[in-house]
C-alpha cells in the first residue's frame, strides 16, 4: 500500500483517505488493495474521504466510480465524503455525476447512514 493513502477499519466500514498528492499508480494500487480487504474483512461499507483532494480530473473521477462499482459487487456501499465545492463543480462539469456512489457531508454522516442501513 502506498504511503499517502491509508485504509483503516472504522466500525463496519473501511475508511480510505485519499491525499491530494496521490499519483495515478498509487490510486490504481489502491483499487487492488481495497478490493482484497473488502473481501477479506467482509465490511458493509467503504468510505472514501476526499476532503484533502483539491484537484480532480477525469482519471480520478473514473477511478472513484470504479471503486464504487467494485465495492458494490463485493456487497459494500461506497460513500464519498468531504468533497470540496470546487471538486464538485469540476466533476459536474466533466459530466461525472458518480451515480453509483452515495455521498455524505462528513465521516460522521456516512457512519450514521451505514448504521441505519
Amino acid at each position: 500500500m502506498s504511503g499517502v493513502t491509508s485504509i483503516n477499519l472504522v466500525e463496519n466500514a473501511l475508511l480510505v483517505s485519499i491525499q491530494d498528492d496521490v499519483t495515478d499508480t498509487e490510486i490504481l494500487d489502491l483499487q487492488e488493495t481495497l478490493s482484497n480487504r473488502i473481501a477479506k474483512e467482509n465490511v458493509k461499507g467503504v468510505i472514501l474521504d476526499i476532503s484533502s483532494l483539491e484537484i480532480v480530473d477525469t482519471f480520478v473521477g473514473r477511478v472513484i466510480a470504479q471503486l464504487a462499482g467494485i465495492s458494490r459487487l463485493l456487497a459494500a456501499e461506497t460513500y464519498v465524503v468531504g468533497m470540496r465545492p470546487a471538486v464538485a463543480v469540476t466533476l459536474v462539469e466533466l459530466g461525472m455525476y458518480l451515480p453509483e456512489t452515495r455521498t455524505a457531508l462528513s465521516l460522521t454522516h456516512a457512519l450514521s447512514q451505514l448504521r441505519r442501513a
Partner: protein
Amino acid sequence: MPQTATANILTILETDFSGVVEEWLGTQVKEGVKRSDLFSDSESRAQNQELLKAFGKGVRAGVVNEEFSLDDDAWEDLRAVLADVSKERVSRGVTPTEMATFVLALKAPLFKRLEAMPGVEGMKLIRDVLMVTRLVDAFAIHTNEIFIGERDQIIERQRQEMLELSTPVVELWDRVLTLPLIGTLDSARAQEVMENLLQTILERQAEVVIMDITGVGTVDTQVAQHLLRAAAAVRLMGAECIISGISPMIAQTMVQLGIDVGTVSTRSSIRTALSDALQRVGYVIKKNEAS
C-alpha cells in the same frame, strides 16, 4: 511660436474667445442639442468655456507638423475636463447623438471666422478647414468614447449588484438551506449561484437544500440543465437537493421538452419542500393544541 498649420486657429481662439463660445452655444441651440431642461445657461457657458480653453491649450502644444494624438500629454487638460463634463451629462441622461453634435457644433463658428480672416483663401483656407475638421472630429470621437466608457461603467456596476443581490442562500433551519431563485438563470448566474451554494453547504454543514424556482419566469432546456447540474453538485457534496416552486405550467413545459430530473426530488411549493426537508433532518411541525 505656434506652427503655421494651426496659427490661424490659435489666433481666432485668442482674439475672439468669448465670441466663439457664444456662437458655439448658438449652434447647439440651432441643432437642438442644448438641453436647457438639464443645464442652465450659465452652466452650459461655463462648460463650453472650459472645454474651449482646454482645446486651445491642446492645439497650441499638442499639434506637431500637422500631426496630433489626443492621448498625448499636451491634451491632458482637455481629457480631464471632458471626463468631468461627460460624467455630468451621462448622469443627467444626455444621449450619445446629443453629445457628439454638441462637440461637432464647434466647427461652424471656427469655419466662419477662418473665412473672414484677411489673406486666408483658396488652398490655404481649405488646409485650415481640414485642420479644424480633423481636430474637432478627434475631439468628438474622444468625447463619445469617454461617454460610452461612462455608460459601460454604470452597466457593469449594476450587473455586479444584480449578481450579488440575486443569489442569497438562506438558512431556514438547522442544516436546511434555501436558495430562492428569481429572474433569469443564465450561465454566468448559474455558476455564481452554484459556487455560492456549495460554499454555504460546507460552512453550515447543511444536509438539505431547497432550490426554489417560484420566481423564475421560464424554464427551458438550458435553465433546467443549470438546475440539474447544481443539484448534482449538491449531491456530490453529500447534501440532498429539493427543487421547489415547479408550477403546473413549468411541469408541462419540462415534460414536453423531455427534461429528466433523475433522482432529484421536486415539489410544487416551497411549503411542502420545507416540511419534507425538516422531516429529513429529524424535525416535525406540530400544531399547538392548547392555543
